[in-house]
């Protein structure tokens, strides 16, 4: 009996250890790891798929690295005129933040886990710094405004139900497709998928998406930044040439006037 108890205990312990380190179980594939911004670029689509243990809820988070933004703050001047009344600084704010889940994140995760993995706007709010604000109420107001501003630019999004789950050979397959906004600047973006069970993150897996300028877009953007004087002179000369050119064409064509 003692030996069989011991064997049972060892098996249980091994199972616990295995489930804690089962990162090989969750897989992630992004349909593209590289988005190229060319002359005719108008955004793209990104799909994320993979396999996970059956019965887990899935959360897909796509973020840019933490950054900082300075934005103008609109308010009432002289009691009734809406205009810029100051600036607000947002620190540790990713320029892009998408969170998609099978269910609402706060229904499938506890607050501690959400904060730890920065899942959902409330967790992002705790992660970010907003200056200057005079108290929690004002902070909440301006965080909500920040989300509205970012959502209007299509750079922030949160949804539940976008991820489709199917079962295949005893495994669970997840799939999600989202529009990639043309407003997202060049840079490196991180796609993280979380398998969630019992209000906790059981596993996570990561993939990268690099957005890069290419061709004429890259050449012009580089020249504008690194060779401003030449870029300015060329822009002026082309404008002058176009103005004279069109003038000449009209002179020839409009002789009757």
């Amino acid at each position: 009996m003692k030996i069989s108890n011991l064997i049972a205990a060892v098996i249980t312990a091994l199972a616990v250890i295995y489930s804690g380190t089962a990162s090989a179980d969750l897989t992630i594939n992004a349909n593209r790891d590289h988005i190229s911004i060319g002359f005719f670029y108008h955004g793209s689509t990104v799909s994320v798929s993979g396999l996970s243990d059956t019965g887990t809820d899935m959360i897909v988070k796509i973020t840019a690295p933490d950054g900082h933004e300075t934005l103008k703050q609109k308010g009432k001047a002289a009691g009734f005129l809406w205009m810029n009344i100051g600036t607000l600084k947002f620190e540790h704010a990713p320029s892009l933040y998408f969170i998609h889940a099978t269910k609402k994140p706060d229904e499938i995760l506890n607050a501690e886990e959400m904060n730890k993995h920065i899942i959902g706007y409330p967790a992002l709010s705790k992660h970010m710094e907003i200056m200057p604000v005079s108290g929690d109420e004002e902070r909440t107001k301006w965080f909500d405004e920040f989300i509205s501003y970012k959502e209007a630019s299509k750079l922030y999004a949160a949804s539940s139900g976008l991820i489709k789950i199917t079962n295949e050979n005893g495994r669970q397959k997840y799939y999600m497709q989202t529009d990639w906004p043309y407003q997202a600047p060049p840079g490196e973006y991180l796609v993280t998928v979380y398998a969630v069970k019992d209000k906790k993150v059981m596993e996570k897996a990561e993939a990268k998406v690099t957005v890069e300028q290419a061709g004429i877009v890259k050449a012009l953007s580089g020249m504008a930044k690194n060779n401003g004087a030449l870029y300015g002179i060329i822009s002026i000369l082309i404008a002058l040439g176009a103005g004279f050119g069109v003038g000449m064409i009209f002179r020839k064509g409009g002789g009757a006037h």
Partner: protein
Amino acid sequence: MYLYLPVALTSINIIIPIGLGLVVGLLSGLFGVGGGFLMTPLLIMLGIPATVAAATDSNQIVAASTSGTYAHWKVGNVDFKMGFHLLIGGFVGGLFGVQAIKILRAMGNADFVIKMTYVLMLGIVGAYMFIESIQSMRKKKFEDSKPEKESGFSKVLKSLPLQTHYEKSGVTHSALVPVIFGGFVGVLAAVMGVGGGFLMVPVMVYILRMPMHVVVGTSLFQILFNCIEVTFLQAYTNHNVDFILAVLLLLGSTIGAQVGAVFGRKLKGEQLKIILAVIVLVVTVKIVFDLTTTPSLLLGQAGGH
């Protein structure tokens, strides 16, 4: 068809900037304004960052005003001498204006002062031009040409030294007059962050007493030089000029300016003044409406008005 704008970092349907250029170019050719007071806010509405919108617009105006100046010069409606004197004043005024903004910013209420100056200037200029043109049209119905009474103000102007004759405009002034008023417009334009065509046109019409058709051509001539300077400085110091967007805009605006110049010759000076006054007043009403309506977003990009 969509094109990606490498400096604005956004994508745009090419029909929109070409169409916008056409309309604003038409206004340039007709009235001798750069049209920044229309173009810049419209570009911002299309998702172009405010600083890129203003810088790229000045690049586009270089093309539209070249096209417009050329069209007006062909029919002898550009007073180069007057244009140069206004430019000297405008250049010096611009330098003072930039300093004035620095002082305002240091005082902490720059945005309020700038916005109020803009609304008041647009409103006063629009209303004055509108009323004056209607009055002069009515007068013309009854009596063809009656010499206007000389006001105290014009007597003061005539007593200034360096009197010179501006042949194309058919007026005689002290060279100091265009320099001083060009400077005055330069200060305000720099403070408001606009080209100032809507101020320069009334200055030429009402203070310098130039004929409206010469005003349009000469105004475009001096706008051309201002915008070359602004485009270079923006490209060199702020890296804000979007070349692709500028090309799309100028495809429309250079043609629009030609059409405007041709069309303008068929209209009388008073008619041109009234239409310009109405456009300026509509823009004023729009700005007042925006100022008093709760905006949908309370945060915006830094760098805009």
